[in-house]
């Protein structure tokens, strides 16, 4: 269902499908249509014009009925084209899967053979095969199939290499499966879509190739008609009686166009990357559809979020990823945001600078104040001038955020020159200073490195250097040390800590690790299902968590130095944000929840320096005056 609807969404593919269905239907019913015999000659009636009496499309140089020859010829051309495609796909896929699965020497031998096949121009190779086997439609079919095997073999091998190293293949080996069984039941189902895609885009090509061989007289033999041989026979009368060439020519054009349009549609509909929306280009800034009043800025925070709401609109579902989040940071302060995956912590951070991909992301409420200026709904030019210059990001995986083909020095220079009109030389000097700031040894030579030449810790330092490139006021770090080893993590954290003390940076640090928060952050906000459930000074929150979720999340995490013991797990799973329960989102997993928790909104109330969203706090809290 999803495949057909995806295909139908592509108008051209749908048109191709309809035309192709008509052509195939015509070819199928040809034997029962009241047509003249395609091979009976009647030289008295040669070169009749189209729409003549008794011959709708006219006759050829031997007086044979062109309509009849066209339909019979189409039938034959289609059959040969499809058969060649199937044979090439089956053999090519088999070769490719075997080469890709076994790898090493087997792969080397097979693929070098395939390379040799590819070294000849295809038409020359096909001619050589037909010359060796003798002319005839069957031999033309064999030639076309053989010529196309390398295309399939290479495609399928590439996919298979990826699959053969997947963990489920290892798991199948450990479950006692042999190689042959693994190929058939584990690898093959995962490459079938690729085979179908490759076939759909090559069938048209193969029909053309077969027609080409027949045109040269190497395919179907007289009097049998196929589209190529009809063209070939009509060649001598091209000027005097053009309709004899136009009729088969138009049919070839229709078939190949229809198949190619359909093939492109099939590819787009089956390709998982295109399916997930890679073809829809996200907008330059997140879409804003604010309903309700816009809050006013308050306090002296350099970055201040007020009731921010970000949603994802996917078809008719609404995912409330961020459901009204407020926080702020002062210069030199570090705010930790802690939460599990899906709690909305990253989406909150990306919403600040309008970096959530739209579609499907939409900011539906609240405001983001940078020094009192509301950034939600700000013009793209304004956002762009602030991105990186005033508010910079550090992401989890520096390998994914650094461009693999440019030297890190050039990338730093570019980051500087986007916001500052300085010469290349000045920018380079600044880049060198930045690498020294983030304590990269041999900074001069490191400028010339590509990202892949550096270790994970070094790359993350470059990521931090890039964030610092334009002396931002705020750095938003989204799990910057999660992918790093502990010894490297310790170095990066102390680097961030020094930087904020030296330069008065405000840092928003997103993590799931309480140890990191405890060491680096002044205040911490705990998020659950798109909302802050507790916020306060780090020390106080960690020593005496007031929200049941915070307390139990801390209890889940083993801490070094406590020895072997059982952990206190939280039963159940976080709720899906497109189906949030009314009232407290944690209530279904909470042992203290009552009916009151499941009804209506629970407010985030202030208690002195901390805030809490719970009716039954774990510790006694005094309400703020």
């Amino acid at each position, binding site marked *: 269902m999803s495949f057909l609807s995806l295909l139908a969404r592509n108008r051209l593919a749908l048109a191709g499908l309809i035309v192709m269905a008509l052509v195939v239907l015509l070819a199928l019913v040809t034997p029962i249509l009241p047509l003249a015999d395609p091979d009976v000659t009647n030289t008295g009636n040669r070169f009749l014009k189209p729409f003549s009496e008794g011959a709708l499309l006219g006759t050829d140089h031997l007086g044979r009925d062109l309509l009849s020859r066209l339909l019979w010829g189409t039938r034959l051309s289609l059959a040969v084209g499809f058969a060649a495609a199937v044979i090439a796909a089956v053999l090519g896929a088999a070769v490719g899967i075997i080469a890709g699965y076994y790898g090493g020497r087997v792969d080397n031998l097979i693929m070098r053979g395939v390379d040799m096949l590819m070294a000849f121009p295809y038409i020359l190779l096909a001619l050589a095969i037909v010359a060796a086997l003798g002319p005839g439609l069957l031999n033309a079919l064999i030639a076309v199939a053989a010529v196309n095997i390398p295309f399939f073999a290479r495609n399928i091998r590439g996919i298979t290499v990826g699959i053969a190293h*997947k*963990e*489920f293949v*290892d*798991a*199948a*080996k*450990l*479950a*006692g*499966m*042999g190689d042959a069984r693994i190929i058939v*039941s*584990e690898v093959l*189902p*995962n490459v079938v879509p690729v085979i179908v895609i490759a076939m759909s885009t090559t069938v048209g090509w193969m029909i053309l190739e077969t027609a080409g061989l027949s045109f040269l007289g190497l395919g179907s033999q007289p009097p049998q008609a196929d589209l190529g041989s009809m063209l070939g026979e009509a060649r001598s009368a091209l000027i005097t009686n053009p309709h004899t060439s136009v009729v088969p020519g138009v049919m070839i054009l229709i078939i190949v166009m229809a198949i190619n349009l359909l093939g492109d549609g099939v590819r787009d509909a089956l390709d998982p990357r295109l399916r997930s929306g890679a073809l829809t280009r996200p907008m330059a800034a997140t879409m804003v559809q604010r309903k309700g009043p816009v809050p006013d800025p308050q306090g002296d925070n350099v970055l201040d979020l007020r009731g921010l709401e970000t949603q994802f609109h996917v078809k008719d579902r609404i995912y409330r990823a961020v459901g009204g989040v407020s926080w702020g940071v002062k210069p030199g302060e570090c705010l930790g945001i802690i939460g*599990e*995956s899906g709690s909305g912590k990253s989406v909150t951070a990306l919403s600040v600078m309008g970096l959530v991909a739209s579609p499907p992301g939409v900011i539906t409420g609240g405001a983001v104040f940078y020094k009192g200026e509301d950034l939600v709904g700000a013009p793209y030019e304004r956002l762009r001038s602030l991105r990186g210059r005033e508010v910079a990001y550090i992401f989890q995986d520096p390998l994914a955020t650094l461009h693999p083909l440019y030297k890190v020095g050039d990338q730093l220079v570019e980051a500087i020159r986007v916001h500052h009109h300085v010469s290349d030389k000045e920018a380079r000097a600044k880049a060198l200073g930045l690498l020294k700031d983030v*304590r990269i*040894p041999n900074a001069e030579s490191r400028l010339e490195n590509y990202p892949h030449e550096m*270790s*994970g810790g*070094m790359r993350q330092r470059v990521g931090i250097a890039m964030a610092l490139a334009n002396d931002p006021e705020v750095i938003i770090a989204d799990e910057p040390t999660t992918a790093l*080893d*502990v*010894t490297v*993590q*310790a*170095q990066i*954290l*102390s*680097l961030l*800590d020094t930087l904020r003390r030296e330069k008065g940076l405000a840092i928003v640090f997103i993590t*799931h*690790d*309480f*140890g*990191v928060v*405890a*060491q680096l952050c002044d205040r911490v906000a705990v998020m659950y299902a798109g909302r802050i459930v507790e916020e306060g000074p780090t020390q106080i929150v*960690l020593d005496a968590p007031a929200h049941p979720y915070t307390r*139990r*999340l801390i209890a*889940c*995490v*083993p*801490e*070094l*130095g*406590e*020895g*072997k*013991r*059982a*952990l*206190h*797990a*939280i039963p159940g*799973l*976080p709720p899906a944000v497109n189906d949030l329960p009314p009232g407290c989102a944690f209530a279904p997993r909470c042992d203290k929840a009552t009916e009151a928790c499941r009804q209506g909104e629970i407010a985030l109330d202030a208690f002195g320096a901390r805030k809490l969203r719970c009716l039954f706090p774990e510790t006694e809290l005094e309400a703020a005056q």
Partner: protein
Amino acid sequence: MSIALKLDALSKTFVVGKQLFGPPKGRVHAVHPVTLEVPEGETLGIVGESGCGKSTLARMLVGLLEPSGGSIEIAGKPLDNADPAVFGKRIQYVFQDPISSLNPRKTVRQIMEVPLKRLHGMDKAQRDRRISEIFAQVNLREEFLDRYPHEFSGGQAQRIGIARALAAEAKILILDEPVSALDVSVQAQVLNLLAELKQRLGLTYLFISHDLAVVEAVSDRVAVLYFGSVVEIGRAEDVFANPRHPYTKLLADSAPVVGRPLTAPEGRETELPDPLNPPKGCAFRARCPYAGERCGEEVPRLEGETQLAACFHPLR
């Protein structure tokens, strides 16, 4: 107590830059000869940073990778042919990424049936009974059986991975970072499940992780790997609390702990030694504050009573 798993000088060397003619460009000693004994019913934790050879070691133990030297013995019987199907009945593997270890195009039932059919030759009725039994053990509902892997959360998928490993009825499980892809609240559920299964079924675990706190919480003994060698091994409560090897101390000091001020235990930048061009002597020498002359000449051996360390200048 009998020995469940015994490794004798097990090592792995990868050949890099193979050429059609002539010798290869270099060799990487991913795992230096490791000798270990794991008693039945023990959880041995293996920690180390990326590139230390912990996954290579694990893959050798289940026969997915052929060792370059040394031998593996399970319950007194040697296993020297790298055939996963033979290994499979005696030692099983739980993968790090729960989703990618399940074939996306098979239902959970099809995935669960394979080890029962291939390793134990059960018929349909036996298989159904056994699958119900295992699913009850890992707290999964039987209605999950006819769904596809992408429909599950990470925690549920990891339970399915554990269920598949249990289906082989192996007594030893290699747990390769089994919870590092999971959220903390789910992580605890899976760790507790593993502890419960071990108790009930008398299993032996090799628990591989980079998370020191998790390893300490679940292990009886811990082995610390650095650059392909075991540098320290001892009881879990001692290894990080009172490390003997300077590297173990560095690891323990680097782990973020609530209530400890932020310090970088290692001030200057350090990178792992180059595997293609390994240093002479102790691999940790370049990062070690205690390194002496002897460290640059000889490779230290694991020595000690209950807490063994491979160091000429142990901390205690």
